[in-house]
């Protein structure tokens, strides 16, 4: 099975090395991808919770008699 490749260019010599990732790098890549997925899911959940809280707050302000323009201007 072939692994994905990486490219490294030495900016002093101009030498370009393209090689397959090592087994250790492949393991790290899996760990990094999982951490990335968790981080993005947490951000998504936080953004959703924030949007829901805003919508809930706006609805309560409307019920208190504020206009939509007054709520948007806060």
């Amino acid at each position, binding site marked *: 099975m072939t692994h*994905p490749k990486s490219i490294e*260019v030495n900016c*002093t010599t*101009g030498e370009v090395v393209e090689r397959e990732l090592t087994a250790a*790098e492949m393991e790290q890549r899996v760990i*990094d*991808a999982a951490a*990335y997925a968790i981080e*993005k899911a947490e951000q998504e959940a936080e953004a959703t919770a924030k949007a829901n809280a805003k919508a809930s707050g706006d609805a309560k302000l409307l019920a208190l008699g504020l206009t939509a323009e007054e709520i948007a201007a806060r």
Partner: protein
Amino acid sequence: MELIETITVGSGGVASVTFSAIPATYTDLRLVTSLRGTGTGTDTRIDFNGLTTNQSQIMSRGNGVAASSVTEANFYGIQVTSSQTANTFSNGELYIPNYAGANNKSFSQTDVQETNANGAWMYLSALLWSSTAAITSIKFAPGAGNFAQFSSLSLYGIKST
């Protein structure tokens, strides 16, 4: 401004691109990127000197549907994903002043997905690498998946005199 190196990704894609042994002979560095990923993630990880620590990114971002501000503990750029318009890429730029100095490294980023549709992300960021080490290598890697063929990255050096 002087071109130091350009890398264009070949067929099959790559998992990462690294500029290493960056000479300390310039004042500032400018990176220009055009990236497309083979996966569905929009983010590209950026690391200095092989380290993922001491990174902070304050980002304003939007995608035509929603806008937000976030603080990240990692450096992220943008790539176009495999599910977006075919043959489109991101346009990105990092400007790193005083990259070889002995102070912490503050720098800036602009990144946009070319896809002209709702859901196309754009980032505007102020970043800080809390390290007094000179930046000698810069690595780009997709958050997940590979960089697609024809993605390109160019590193420029800028001298004040």
